């Protein structure tokens, strides 16, 4: 979306202008949308590029844990569903990369940042998918958490990001429902299947809660991001909302949420929950998760092994253009 022109515009936008800045803040405060060629503070642009590209990377890396089970899906129906879901994740990554490119970031730069480890992605994908039930749990919990994070972003201040989120949210709903349905089958199946479903919940519950990010008192850029409407609810608010909607879903499956401190709080109208291990979260974000290195290696290998395809496509087009010119 107009990336080429934006690259030029960026250079002039670096000089911050107080009047322009005030007008920008007023527009955003009035819930108006900012579009690619509009003037915006350099810090807003930078924040968005970081947030959108991290989001895109998460979608792309998110294909890997699921791809692990593609050839071993228990039925053809499940295999077709999983394949469609993984294709959606690729699509989500691409909508988001395209949105980030409207801010002047190049696709190659973003790819390079992911591969070098300079860019982060959601910590959840650094956990392995050990059993088939993990695929159901990911759809139900991970995509469920993603929906709560993403629904408010459909009204985020940056137009291309908001529009990408509208498409993504529509598709995520399929992801969550197929996951829950898959968990229902296991939870109502044999003893072994039910045990497998419980084990998946045990392993994915806490990482899913961490997906909402650090607690509010330790989330440095939260306030500014809220003001700029690139974030619309705090991490803790969204986490609480997720717990409140998910616990009854677990109960309906006949599964137990692995938190001994989980208790309904009548006065708050919400569940109280146990302490989250934030040390684990930061370690996993740094790529120290069980499979962090494998994830990036798989991405880099795919990129490098397929370089010849990109080169051949470009060479073919150069030849075609030369023939046309002749």
């Amino acid at each position, binding site marked *: *979306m*107009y*990336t*080429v*022109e934006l690259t030029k515009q960026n250079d002039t936008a670096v000089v911050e202008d107080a009047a322009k800045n005030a007008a920008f803040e007023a527009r955003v405060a009035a819930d108006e949308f900012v*579009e690619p*060629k*509009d*003037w915006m503070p350099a810090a807003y642009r930078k924040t968005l590029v970081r947030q959108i590209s991290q989001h895109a990377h998460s979608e792309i890396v998110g294909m890997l844990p699921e791809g692990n089970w593609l050839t071993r899906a228990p039925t053809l129906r499940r295999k077709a569903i999983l394949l*469609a879901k993984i*294709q*959606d994740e690729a*699509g989500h990554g*691409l*909508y988001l990369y*395209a*949105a980030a*490119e409207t801010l002047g970031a*190049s*696709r*190659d730069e973003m790819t390079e940042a992911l591969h070098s480890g300079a860019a982060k992605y959601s910590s959840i994908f650094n956990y392995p998918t050990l059993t088939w039930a993990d695929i159901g749990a990911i759809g139900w919990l991970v995509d469920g958490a993603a929906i709560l994070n993403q629904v408010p972003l459909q009204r985020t201040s940056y137009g*291309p990001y908001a*529009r*990408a989120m509208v498409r993504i949210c529509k*598709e995520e709903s399929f992801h969550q429902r197929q996951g829950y349905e898959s968990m229902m089958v296991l939870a109502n199946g044999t003893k072994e299947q039910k045990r497998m479903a419980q084990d998946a919940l045990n392993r994915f519950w806490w990482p899913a809660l961490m997906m909402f990010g650090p607690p509010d008192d330790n989330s440095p850029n939260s306030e500014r991001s809220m003001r700029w409407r690139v974030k619309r609810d705090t991490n803790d608010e969204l986490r609480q909302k997720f717990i409140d909607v998910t616990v009854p879903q677990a109960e309906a499956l006949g599964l137990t949420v692995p938190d001994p401190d989980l208790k309904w709080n009548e006065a708050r109208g919400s569940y109280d929950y146990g302490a989250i291990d934030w040390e684990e979260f930061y370690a996993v974000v740094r790529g120290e998760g069980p499979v962090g290195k494998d994830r990036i290696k798989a991405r880099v290998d795919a990129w490098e092994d397929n370089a010849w395809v*990109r080169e051949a*496509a*470009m060479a*073919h*087009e150069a030849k*075609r253009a030369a023939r046309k010119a002749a």
Partner: protein
Amino acid sequence: MEMPLWEVFVRSKHGLSHRHVGSVHAADPRMAVEAARDVYTRRMEGVSLWVVRSDEITASDPGESSSLFEPAEDKVYRHPTFYVVPDNIKHI
């Protein structure tokens, strides 16, 4: 080397215009159409696609938006509701 960027437009059904939905990278026009199909029409969102090189698009400058669009604001006489016609006059 990065493949060029293409803007993607989808006609959701016959009778409606193509509408901008996003962009894709592709080496050539045919590859751009195929990538656009995979990225933007996985759920019957369209019956027709247009792709156009992003660097071929000339857009208006937001800095000039007042000189371009504001002159229309004081030309209310271009709207039918500007004209008062008595209630007893029908079919107008």
